[in-house]
């Protein structure tokens, strides 16, 4: 059999998912000299870029500009994008094995972790990930409803998703109108009655996971004041000792910013964004109609583990916080892919440095790989996916060099293309996406916004002049 990787027999790689990790892996594969690679990238949505489009906050356009680098990758002649094609629905693992030498899963973490406390199912209690997908115009979440007539909202968690959600709830109509937030969310949030938004952290200021630019941003909002309780901004002796020893400037700056907020006097703005530390939700309490009305919180202290980490330990001290809307933001979680080994506890594909493992033999499954959040779990910033993708691609290239690839029965690009279009006639190409992108930007220009998103598959299909959906 001819070894693939040449102009006549390219190495054919299927990438499932089209977020940052998928594109960084594609980039690294294309960078290889003396190796001809063809990449087909699949996404269950018609549009590419994963959480850059559907997760990054709509007022963070600068972060979204990372997609310019992805456009250059997609522009390569051996790259094809198949949007609106779902792995496990339109194409199966066996199809990919029949048409590609290597398969790379880059599906990210599509769901959220639960708090596992009583009352989590009450009306008014939602995963933050759903709210994020909703305001970002994700087609699957456009019909969600969040009761923004509530005045007090709790966001459980102190990571960047939590702080994004809290900030979005505090933006003024003018600030919102300058973003690419979905139109329906712009309308709903512009009429919101929310007055107080609580961010709740289990540990202290030094352990909060949000990054400093996000923290600084909430001090500069047009119509909301940041509030931190002075006693909670003070570091406990363990955190102080750790911070002094490590001397990490980012942590020091974060604590300083929080302490500065604690010293501020309320500026008389319409909303308050209150950051609370050392509290854990114990229970959500509802009224007769099953609507959440308050939350019971345990006050925590920090204890040091044997390995040196500081973790939260609940005390007997309990307080009640009246809230009518709760978003849990205690972490994203990967979803298992059909027929792909999965580590349920951690929500990742079972893997060793990106090589998918067989759960029985514990050895690698030939030709299957993972990268990004579905490989390591949700951690880091967009760029963290680059070294992660390089690690996986290095394994792919090593295996390729050792002849350890799949041997597809139909290795021609045309065969894959016909199969995909037969299974999903409503397929979106990268050129389709570029047209949609132009249209979205043009619609935005008319309103002084970065873009106005299409928020349903049908709407996108129709915008391309393809007529009614045949889904």
């Amino acid at each position, binding site marked *: 059999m001819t070894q693939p990787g040449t102009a006549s027999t390219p190495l054919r790689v299927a990438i499932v998912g089209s977020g940052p990790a998928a594109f960084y892996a594609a980039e690294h594969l294309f960078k290889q000299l003396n190796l001809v690679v063809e990449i087909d990238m699949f996404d269950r949505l018609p549009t590419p870029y994963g959480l850059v489009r559907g997760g990054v906050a709509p007022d963070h356009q*600068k*972060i979204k*500009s*990372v997609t*310019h*680098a992805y456009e250059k990758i997609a522009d390569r002649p051996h790259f094809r994008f198949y949007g609106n094609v779902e792995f496990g629905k339109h194409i199966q693992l066996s199809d990919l094995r029949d048409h590609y030498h290597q398969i790379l899963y880059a599906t990210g973490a599509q769901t959220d972790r639960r708090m596992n406390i009583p009352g989590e199912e009450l009306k008014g209690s939602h995963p933050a990930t759903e709210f994020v997908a909703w305001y970002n115009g994700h087609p699957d979440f456009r019909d969600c409803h969040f009761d923004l007539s509530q005045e007090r909202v709790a966001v459980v968690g102190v990571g960047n998703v939590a702080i994004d959600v809290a900030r979005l709830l505090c933006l003024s109509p003018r600030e919102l109108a300058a973003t690419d937030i979905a139109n329906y969310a712009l309308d709903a949030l512009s009429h919101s009655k929310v007055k107080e938004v609580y961010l709740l952290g289990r540990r202290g200021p030094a*352990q909060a996971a949000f990054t400093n630019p996000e923290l600084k941003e909430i001090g500069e909002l047009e119509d909301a004041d940041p509030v931190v309780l002075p006693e909670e901004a003070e570091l406990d002796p363990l955190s102080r000792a*750790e911070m002094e*020893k*490590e001397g*990490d400037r980012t942590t020091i700056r974060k604590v300083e910013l929080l302490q500065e907020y604690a010293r501020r006097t309320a500026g008389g703005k319409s909303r308050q964004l209150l950051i609370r530390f050392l509290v854990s939700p114990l229970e959500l309490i509802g009224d007769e109609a099953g609507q959440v009305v308050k939350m019971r919180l345990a006050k925590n202290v920090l204890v040091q*583990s*044997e*390995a*040196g*980490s*500081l*973790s939260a330990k609940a005390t007997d001290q309990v307080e009640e916080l009246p809230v009518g809307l709760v978003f849990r933001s205690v972490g994203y979680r990967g979803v298992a892919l059909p027929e792909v080994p999965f*580590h349920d*506890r*951690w929500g*990742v594909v*079972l*893997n*060793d*440095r*990106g090589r998918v*493992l067989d*759960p029985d033999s*514990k050895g690698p499954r030939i030709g299957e790989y*993972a990268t990004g959040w579905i*490989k*390591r*779990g949700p*951690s*880091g*910033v*967009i*760029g*963290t*996916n*680059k*070294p*992660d993708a390089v*690690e996986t691609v290095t394994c792919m290239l090593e295996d390729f060099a050792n002849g350890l690839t799949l041997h597809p029965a139909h290795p021609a690009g045309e065969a894959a293309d016909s199969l995909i279009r037969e299974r999903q006639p409503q397929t979106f190409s990268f050129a389709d996406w570029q047209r949609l992108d132009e249209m979205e930007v043009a619609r935005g220009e008319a309103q002084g916004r970065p873009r106005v998103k299409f928020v349903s598959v049908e709407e996108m299909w129709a915008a391309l002049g393809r007529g009614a959906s045949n889904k």
Partner: protein
Amino acid sequence: MKVKTILASKGMTVVAARPDQLIGEAIALLSAHNIGLLVIVDGAGKLVGVLSERDIVREAAGNEAFLSQVIEQVMTKAVITGTPQDDVRSVLQTMTDKRFRHLPIIDRGNLIGIVSIGDLVKAQLEEYEGEIDTLQSQVSKGSD
């Protein structure tokens, strides 16, 4: 970043030995797997110690017959363990302070993996690289 992020893509294999095996066998295992530490478990799979390259060197320095010693006589019995929830940065600090290089990770009473100082440094480095890359992509866009 937490230790579980490292373990998530580190495979499922933990190389273990029994306390009654010989140091010679332990060396063969370390060499075959290209690793620096063995976890030592009893018949019930319970962690009873670790045997590091350093433990072996220390023994070899004063005992020419070290190869025929049993692991139990040479291993470190007071083992510091971690959990998947431990912060990478804190663990690195503890390793530096207490001068050890491998941390067995226990989850719900089970030994589920080992993180080495190399794993931790690599993870930390990738985190920094990622942040720098993200910042650079924003800065270069800003100056377009």
